[in-house]
C-alpha cells in the first residue's frame, strides 16, 4: 500500500499546479514595468520537480557543466495565468477536505450576503440601522470570498477578477475582497512597517510634519545608475525605491514615476509635495526645508493606479541638489489629504526664494492638512555628487555653495587675507636698494 501511494505521489508531483492557460506563451522576455502590485511567488507555491533537462544534462556532462536551476516566468500582464489546484485530487486528502469546507462556508456566507442585500433594498430602515446593515453587508461580501484559494492566489499574483474577459488589471481593487487582501498585505507583511520605521528613525516625523499615519501605499521609481563597465550596454532599468535608501543625484535628475494603491473607492483630493528636510541655512546656522515639487488637487481612488508623472506640475520639479560638505539630505514625498476630500484648494505656486523658505509645518497648518488622518509618504536620502554641480549650473543657474571646514591653506587665502603681513616696500622698485639700515619714510 505504501509503495502504491509513493508511486502515485511521485506521478502526481510531476503534474504541475497552476499550469499556464495559454500554451503558446511568448518566448521573449519583456522588460516589465516596475512592480506596482504584490510580487508573484507562484514558484514557491508550485510543487514542480526540477526540469527533466537537468537530469539528462547531469548524465551527459557528468557534472562538469551543470545547467543552472531555471524557474517559471513571473506573472505579468503579457503572461497571465489562471489559478489551478496546487495538488491533484487524492494526493493530500486534508487539502481536498479543506477545499470542500471552504467552498461550503463561502457559499453560505454569499447566500447570507444576498439576503441582506435584498433586505436593504426592499425594507424601510432607519439611518443608523441602515449604516449598520451596510457595514455588515461589506463584511459579508469580503468574508464570502476571502478564504477561497483562487481569490487569495489572484490577490497575491496581481491578477484581477476579469481575466476570463481578457480584461485584466493588476490587483483589481474594484472588488472589496481584493482591496481587503491587498491592504491587509500592505499593513501586515512589512511594507508599511518598514516605511514607518525609516520615517521615525530618520526623524522625518518631528522635523517635517507633526504626525503621520498613512492610509494608502505609494511607490516611487527612479532609473538605476548606469553600470561602470562602459563596454556593457544595457537598457536603463527603473526600480522601486526602498524607503530611506541612498540615491544618487544622477538618478533623481528627472521626476520619478509615482504609483499608488488606494483603498477607498470614492475619489478624494490629495496634495503632493516633495521637500528636502536638510537644506542648510548658513546665516542661522541651522537647516530648513526646501520645496522641490508640488502638485495640489490630485484626485485619487481605488481605480487610479498611475503612474503619475505630472509633466506640467503646478510647481515644477527641481532635482535634489545636496550641497557639498553638508550631511546627507532627507527627501520626503508626501501625499496629504485635503481637509474636505471633495474640495480643491487654491495654493499659489511659490517663487524660487519661497521654495527655500518653505516651512512644511506652517504650510500644512495654513491649508488644514492633517497627515494623521490619512495620506501617504515616501522618503530617500542623498549625498553630494558631481551631478549637483551640473544642477547648480544648468537648472538653478547659481553658484554652487560649499559647506564644511576650511583647510588652513584656504583660510590663509580667504579669511586671513587682511591679517597677512604686508610687504610695505613692495612696488617701489629700486628706490630703496642699497640703503641698508637707514630708516626713511617712503616717498
Amino acid at each position, binding site marked *: 500500500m505504501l509503495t502504491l501511494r509513493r508511486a502515485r*505521489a511521485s506521478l502526481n*508531483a510531476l503534474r504541475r499546479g497552476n499550469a499556464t492557460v495559454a500554451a503558446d506563451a511568448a518566448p521573449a522576455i519583456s522588460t516589465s514595468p516596475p512592480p506596482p502590485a504584490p510580487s508573484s511567488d507562484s514558484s514557491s507555491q*508550485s*510543487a514542480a520537480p526540477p526540469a527533466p533537462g537537468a537530469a539528462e544534462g547531469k548524465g551527459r556532462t557528468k557534472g562538469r557543466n551543470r545547467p543552472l536551476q531555471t524557474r517559471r516566468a513571473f506573472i505579468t500582464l503579457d503572461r497571465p495565468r489562471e489559478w489551478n489546484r*496546487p495538488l491533484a485530487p487524492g494526493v493530500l486528502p486534508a487539502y481536498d*477536505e479543506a477545499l470542500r*469546507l471552504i467552498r461550503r462556508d463561502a457559499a453560505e456566507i454569499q447566500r447570507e450576503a444576498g439576503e441582506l442585500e435584498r433586505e436593504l433594498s426592499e425594507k424601510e430602515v432607519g439611518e443608523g440601522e441602515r449604516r449598520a446593515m451596510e457595514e455588515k453587508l461589506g463584511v459579508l461580501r469580503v468574508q464570502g470570498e476571502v478564504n477561497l*484559494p483562487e481569490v487569495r492566489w489572484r490577490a497575491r499574483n496581481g491578477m484581477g477578477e476579469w481575466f476570463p474577459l481578457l480584461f485584466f488589471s493588476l490587483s483589481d481593487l474594484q472588488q472589496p475582497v481584493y482591496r481587503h487582501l491587498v491592504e491587509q498585505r500592505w499593513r501586515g507583511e512589512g511594507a508599511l512597517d518598514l516605511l514607518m520605521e525609516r520615517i521615525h528613525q530618520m526623524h522625518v516625523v518631528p522635523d517635517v510634519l507633526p504626525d503621520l499615519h498613512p492610509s494608502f501605499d505609494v511607490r516611487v521609481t527612479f532609473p538605476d545608475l548606469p553600470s561602470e563597465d562602459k563596454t556593457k550596454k544595457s537598457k536603463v532599468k527603473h526600480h*522601486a525605491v526602498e524607503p530611506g535608501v541612498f540615491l544618487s543625484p544622477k538618478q533623481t535628475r528627472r521626476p520619478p514615476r509615482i504609483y499608488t494603491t488606494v483603498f477607498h473607492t470614492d475619489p478624494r483630493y490629495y496634495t503632493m509635495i516633495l521637500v528636502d528636510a536638510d537644506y542648510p541655512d548658513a546665516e542661522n546656522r541651522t537647516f530648513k526645508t526646501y520645496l522641490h515639487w508640488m502638485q495640489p488637487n490630485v484626485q485619487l481612488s481605488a481605480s487610479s493606479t498611475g503612474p503619475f508623472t505630472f509633466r506640467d506640475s503646478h510647481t515644477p520639479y527641481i532635482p535634489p541638489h545636496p550641497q557639498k560638505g553638508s550631511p546627507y539630505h532627507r527627501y520626503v514625498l508626501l501625499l496629504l489629504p485635503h481637509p474636505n476630500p471633495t474640495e480643491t484648494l487654491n495654493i499659489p505656486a511659490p517663487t524660487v526664494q519661497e521654495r527655500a523658505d518653505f516651512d512644511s509645518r506652517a504650510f500644512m497648518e495654513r491649508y488644514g492638512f492633517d497627515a494623521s488622518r490619512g495620506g501617504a509618504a515616501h522618503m530617500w536620502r542623498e549625498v553630494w555628487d558631481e551631478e549637483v554641480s551640473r544642477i547648480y549650473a544648468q537648472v538653478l543657474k547659481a553658484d554652487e555653495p560649499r559647506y564644511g571646514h576650511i583647510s588652513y591653506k584656504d583660510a590663509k587665502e580667504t579669511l586671513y587675507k587682511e591679517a597677512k603681513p604686508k610687504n610695505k616696500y613692495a612696488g617701489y622698485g629700486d628706490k630703496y636698494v642699497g640703503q641698508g639700515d637707514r630708516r626713511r619714510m617712503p616717498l
Partner: protein
Amino acid sequence: MSFPILPQRSIKPTLRKCQTSVRYAGRTAPAGDPRHEILRRTLYPSNLRNKSTPTGTWRSDVGRALQHAIPSVQAHETIERAWLLHQRHVRRQRDSELKRKFEKMKEAMDELEKLDKHLYFEANRQEDPRARSTKEVELTKTLKGSERKAMEARIRGLFPRELRVPTDTPPRTGWNYDWKPTGPASTP
C-alpha cells in the same frame, strides 16, 4: 560610493540545493609555506555544499523530507485556513449554545424569584464540596489507619487522592488484580 536600491520583491530561499557557477574547493594544506593556502582560503572560501554541516544546521535529506511533508505552500495555507475556519464554527456554535442555556436559566431563575423567595434563595445557595456532614465527621473519628486515610482522600467532586498517576511504561510489579479499595461501607 555605492547606492544600493533593493528591489521591492523579496527573495525567498528555496529548499533546493544552492548552485553557484564558480566552485572553490577546499584543498589539504601542502607541506611548507601555508601562507598561500591561508590567503586562498580567506579570499575564496569553499562554497561546495555536498555534505552536511558539522553542527547539523544543514542536512541533505531535510529538503526532501520537508517537500514530502509540505508539498505545496499554498495547499498548506489552505488547509490551515480551513482548520481555523472549522474551529471558528465549532467555537461559535458552542458559545451560542452556552449563551442560549444561560439565557434560559436566567429566565427560569427570574421567574422563581417572582414566585417564591425562599426557594429562590435555596436554589442560589452555593455549597462547599469539601464540607462533610456531621454524621460523616463522627464516622471519621471512629476510623483508624488506612480506612481513615481512605475516608479523608475521597472528596465529593474531586478525584480520589489514591488515583494512580499515569506513566509512560507499565509498572515492573505488573497489574494487581486482587486490589480491593479500603473504605468504610457507608462511603457513597
